[in-house]
């Protein structure tokens, strides 16, 4: 005879305000096999857990139902409490009467009724639970970081610092990411390269860190602690262990039409190139789209001038297979395409640039050597107008609904740097709001306004067009409540940032969930911000949401700490809710084997004793270490031999019955 205890949580007023907790308790007491029911203000508190533990001991409970918040929140808490009292942790079921009930229903009568039904369903289910024991799996003590920007580099360095091996996969030919393209950083005006490049060198020099640049993740298999990853190392056509990075090939290359991606396509580069002077690894790469030798078979100049003999036109993509215990996503961002906003004439007027392009135009290593010149005629501009929120906070569907977070600050930085270097240049900024939360951020913005006389205009811009060799900005000043028509020489668009286009592909390989904006979803927005709900997958940097460099670096450290915590374990407990087959019913048809995404099912010839008849039959065997418990096999099994522990056919049917009663 089963003895069930039901515990109803008030969650302060979160549940108790819309659910009559006393009625749920009274209703619970009349359920079959329920021998104890009690409510408490906070079941998850130590005192609340104490009530559960005491009741298990006192009433010899064989099963526990907690009516509280989502099982995604506190299932583990209550399982542990049960375990401390000597009850198998899998004899606990949660009725979600907060997220799925009290928080969404206003009417107390309705809420209470629904809570009773959910409680009944959980009691019906727990009556069919059986004690389960978690298995163990090994942990491969190596980590993979996808993305070699500041987020990926910092995560990798922190993991390596704890003594674990870590690989960085970067799709571009060099690590460094977006931060390498920046000139100065807010709010301290540190030179970006001066703080980033030492970290890049450190990553390359650290013997625990291995860099796979110009490489992409091809496929991911396995699960937490045991990921198998295939990495495609794209053909560079240059042997990276021989190239010395002297640059002789770049000087001789006759094809100089390739767009320089590092400089935001503002100038050209040869077909064989090193992305920028401080690139890591400092190895050339051939752009097969531009290389005359690869396209026509004629040329071969770079091979002739390379004294090291590093050029290899026959190089092919290489697939490398590696094993990892944890994977960190640090895929970063890109600015959105400004050309879809016709009103700003970005595609037609060369003097309308994006902020990242301005960053390159002001950088000493950029296309103009750090001298700010109009891209159209290479003359000195007299007036520059900044437009904020281009594609950010845009609900029209053309842009992004979110705030990109960094634009207010980098625009203040740009405005300040321009006024500092060229006091004769007028600077106007059109903004919706200036958002400066952050240490020393508001002080920084005020300096731009007060000390550097930057003209901030609250209002949006409707149109930018070219007239008589200069640009005209039509906007509105919301404070003066008047239309403004400004003549200006350059317009800078603070374009929204969006996740790198590879993020979606990588996330789906990792089965990490992704939101409607393609940012990776955290396991919990507040309490587990650097983990994906998928075990063993961690998040670092802008792939999780817009953030600036200090936030990225802190998050990178946090992700590394979580990875280290995982890799420090020798064994991981596996999910015991796995499939199992009833050998007496199995007819060896192989249907389950075909749908299993993990290859966890195999067949064996076994001696079966079927009601006294002994015979050898081909039956299914589930490898519990590989099974992840999706249940695909249970539904395809024609003989009903397959079932899933913890979510058995009978358990789910019992829930259905309880709900439809």
């Amino acid at each position: 005879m089963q003895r069930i205890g039901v515990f109803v949580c008030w969650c302060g007023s979160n549940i108790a305000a819309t659910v009559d907790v006393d009625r749920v308790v009274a209703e619970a007491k009349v359920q079959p096999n329920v021998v104890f029911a009690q409510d408490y203000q906070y079941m998850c508190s130590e005192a609340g857990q104490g009530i559960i533990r005491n009741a298990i001991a006192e009433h010899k409970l064989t099963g526990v139902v907690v009516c509280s918040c989502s099982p995604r929140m506190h299932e583990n808490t209550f399982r542990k409490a049960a375990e401390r009292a000597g009850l198998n942790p899998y004899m606990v079921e949660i009725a979600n009467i907060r997220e799925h009930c009290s928080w969404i229903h206003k009417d107390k009568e309705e809420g209470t009724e629904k809570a009773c039904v959910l409680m009944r369903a959980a009691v019906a289910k727990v009556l069919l639970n059986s004690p389960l024991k978690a298995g163990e799996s090994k942990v491969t003590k190596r980590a993979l970081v996808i993305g070699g920007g500041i987020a990926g580099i910092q995560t990798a360095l922190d993991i390596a610092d704890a003594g674990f091996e870590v690989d960085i996969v970067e799709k571009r030919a060099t690590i460094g990411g977006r931060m390498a393209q920046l000139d100065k950083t807010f709010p301290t005006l540190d030179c970006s390269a001066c703080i980033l490049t030492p970290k890049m060198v450190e990553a390359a020099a650290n013997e625990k860190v291995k860099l796979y640049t110009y490489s992409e993740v091809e496929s991911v298999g396995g699960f937490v602690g045991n990921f198998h990853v295939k990495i495609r190392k794209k053909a560079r056509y240059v042997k990276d262990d021989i190239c010395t990075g002297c640059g002789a090939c770049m000087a001789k290359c006759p094809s100089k039409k390739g767009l320089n991606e590092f400089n935001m396509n503002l100038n050209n580069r040869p077909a064989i190139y090193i992305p920028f002077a401080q690139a890591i690894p400092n190895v050339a790469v051939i752009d097969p789209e531009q290389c005359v030798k690869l396209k026509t078979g004629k040329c071969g100049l770079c091979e002739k001038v390379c004294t090291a003999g590093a050029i290899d036109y026959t190089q092919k993509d290489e697939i490398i297979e590696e094993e990892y215990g944890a994977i960190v996503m640090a895929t970063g961002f890109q600015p959105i395409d400004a050309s879809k906003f016709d009103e700003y004439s970005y595609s037609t007027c060369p003097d309308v640039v994006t902020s990242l392009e301005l960053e390159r135009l002001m950088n000493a290593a950029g296309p103009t050597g750090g001298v700010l010149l109009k891209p159209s005629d290479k003359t000195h501009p007299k007036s520059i107008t900044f437009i904020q929120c281009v594609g950010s906070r845009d609900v029209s569907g053309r842009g992004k609904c979110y705030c990109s977070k960094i634009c207010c600050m980098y625009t203040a930085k740009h405005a300040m740097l321009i006024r500092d270097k060229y006091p004769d240049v007028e600077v106007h900024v059109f903004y919706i709001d200036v958002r400066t939360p952050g240490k020393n951020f508001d002080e920084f913005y005020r300096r731009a306004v007060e000390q550097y006389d930057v003209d901030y205009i609250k209002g949006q811009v409707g149109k930018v067009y070219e007239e008589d060799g200069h640009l005209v900005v039509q906007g509105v000043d919301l404070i003066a409540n008047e239309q403004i028509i400004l003549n200006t020489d350059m317009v800078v668009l603070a374009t929204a940032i969006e996740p790198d286009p590879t993020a979606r592909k990588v996330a789906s390989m990792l089965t990490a969930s992704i939101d409607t904006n393609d940012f990776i979803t955290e396991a919990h927005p507040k309490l587990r911000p650097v983990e994906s709900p998928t075990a063993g997958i961690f998040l670092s940097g802008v792939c999780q949401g817009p953030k600036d460099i200090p936030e990225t670096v802190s998050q990178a450290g946090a992700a590394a700490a979580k990875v280290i915590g995982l890799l420090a374990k020798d064994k991981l407990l596996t999910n015991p809710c796995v499939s199992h087959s009833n050998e007496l019913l199995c007819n060896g048809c192989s249907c389950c084997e075909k749908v299993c995404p993990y290859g966890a099912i195999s067949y064996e010839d076994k001696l079966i004793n079927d009601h006294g008849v002994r015979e050898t039959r081909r039956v299914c065997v589930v490898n519990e270490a590989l099974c992840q418990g999706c249940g695909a096999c249970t539904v395809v099994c024609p003989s009903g031999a397959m079932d899933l522990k913890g979510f058995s056919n009978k358990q789910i049917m019992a829930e259905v019955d309880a709900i439809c009663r």
Partner: protein
Amino acid sequence: MPINEANQEIKKEWKPKIVAFCCNWCSYAGADLAGSSRLVYPADVKIIRVPCSCRVNPMFILRAFEKGADGVILCGCHPGDCHYSTGNYYTRRRMTLLFSMLDYIGVEKGRTRVEWVSAAEGVKFSTVMNNFVSKIYELGENVKVGDLRCKE
């Protein structure tokens, strides 16, 4: 409350019984998000958590209709985003067949639905539930699917 009295009360004001199967990784989390964002949808929807939408055996849905459900909705991760890589593809095919069959035996197409709701789509979850429930109200009370094996 005596059973007869309870039955009479139900007859007075019909409330639909709606079962929602939600996969643990996307839709159940989406429902949690709808909850924590306080996005209201009718209390007639009762959610059953399953590891993956592909865990939902057609048997469960038949059972629900047999026991008097007025609607069954199945929610999973968006195609391509399944936590188990391929589960929701099976669901999609399987339910297409099952729902056609159910329609044939008299459970109208509007009473069954498959929706993809990600963990970040709290708004979508609540919108889907509101739409589904109003569709069920439109269709009215369902006729119980009988099990001929145990006819009394």
